[in-house]
């Protein structure tokens, strides 16, 4: 498996015009038509999607929805009478916390978040990986700036509670593995001009899990090489991938 295939395979279902940023579409568009492995994979994924679409949940009997509405109406009336509708204040403790603690506490909180995601001791999954082809220093600076902003975005998105997180009956969802933020350049000889690509939300572990040992070996060697020759600038431990 070529390493571009490994990077692109998770986006295949979005080919040619799905839920991807423009650069992702154009990368896919320049790779997939010329790659038989990706075309094959895409055809199979599309068959699965077609099978799901062709097998919708059975429409219930005609009387079902009348019954549904009547039952639910009784429950809603009862809830309204019992005054169960939650007072607004109980719902947003996460958002009220900073107000209660005041601005100094907020500053400490932000500092904590910043250290958490950028500090030297941050868990490996939360660090950003940056690798790119040998490039003049300005480009390198750019990459770093990009990485920082990506890390900030990631920090914000991880810390912001989702709308219904506070609903009493709604337990926390299972934890998602943290994702890596990766900035890479396209490979030598890639059909697109060399440019930096922000692969935010690229989950390295998920990618590696989908490869055979040999593919993994080649892939990691490649990244190692880039790290050694200076084209991968961010210190990044590879041992966690073993």
């Amino acid at each position, binding site marked *: 498996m070529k390493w571009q295939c490994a990077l692109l395979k998770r986006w295949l279902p979005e080919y040619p015009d799905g839920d991807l940023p423009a650069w992702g579409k154009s990368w896919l568009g320049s790779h997939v038509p010329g790659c038989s492995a990706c075309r094959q994979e895409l055809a199979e994924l599309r068959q*699965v999607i077609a099978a799901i679409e*062709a*097998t919708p949940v059975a429409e219930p009997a005609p009387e079902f929805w009348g019954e549904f509405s009547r039952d*639910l109406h009784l429950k809603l009336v009862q809830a309204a009478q019992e005054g169960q509708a939650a007072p607004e204040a109980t719902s947003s403790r996460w958002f009220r916390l900073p107000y209660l603690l005041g601005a100094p506490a907020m500053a400490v909180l932000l500092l904590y978040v910043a250290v958490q995601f950028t500090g030297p001791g941050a868990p490996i999954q939360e660090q950003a990986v940056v690798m790119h082809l040998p490039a003049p220093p300005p480009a390198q600076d750019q990459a770093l700036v990009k990485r920082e902003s990506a890390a900030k975005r990631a920090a914000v998105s991880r810390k912001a509670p989702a709308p219904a997180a506070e609903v009493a009956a709604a337990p926390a969802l299972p934890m998602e593995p943290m994702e890596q933020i990766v900035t890479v350049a396209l490979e030598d000889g890639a059909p697109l001009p060399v440019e930096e690509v922000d692969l935010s939300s690229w989950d390295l572990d998920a990618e590696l899990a989908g490869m055979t040992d040999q593919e993994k070996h080649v892939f990691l060697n490649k990244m190692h090489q880039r790290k050694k020759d200076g084209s991968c600038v961010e210190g990044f431990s590879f041992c966690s991938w073993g």
Partner: protein
Amino acid sequence: MTDAQLVSRSQAGDLPAFEELVQKYQREVYGLACRMVSDVEEAKDLAQQAFLQAFVHIRSFRQDAQFRTWLFRIAINQCYNFLKSRRKFGDPIDCDELNLAGAEPSPEADLLAQDQRRRLYEALERLPAKQRAVITLKVEQGLSYQEISQVLGGTAGAARVNYCQALKTLKKHIQTEDDHEVAMRSSKTVAARVPRR
């Protein structure tokens, strides 16, 4: 009336306004629950529970979010709770109920449809609940990865990974049972819905 207007009214205690939201989303919520728990009776209960919870907590809903994704999140959580308790009490999963409910003696095309339905449901059953949720939110409800992340938590990228992983796992399950034959067959005749009862 828009969702935002209906939500505002609901927040002010207007039950008919909330019931208009119910009318609007009941099919989607029920369909989601069916996919999640593979049990039509439970799905009906869970969908009602989801609406009830949404009503009870409607004042905690902030208008900068979409009501639909907020509602889906509540529904998914209801389903997770149900699946957790079912696992605890060891109820067997009965996918035949969904697949074959109300199916009448049928011509060959319907048998094929039933077979494909059964295979797909069995494959879906074997997915982790979260991947099942991503599949149905993406393919059937048409949510973007950003919206899916609002429903399930995590990031849009994580939703994308889960979606792709789920498709691949489904492919594997279907092909394994398949012996390279039936399930992936192009199925124009199969799309017909089988009426229940």
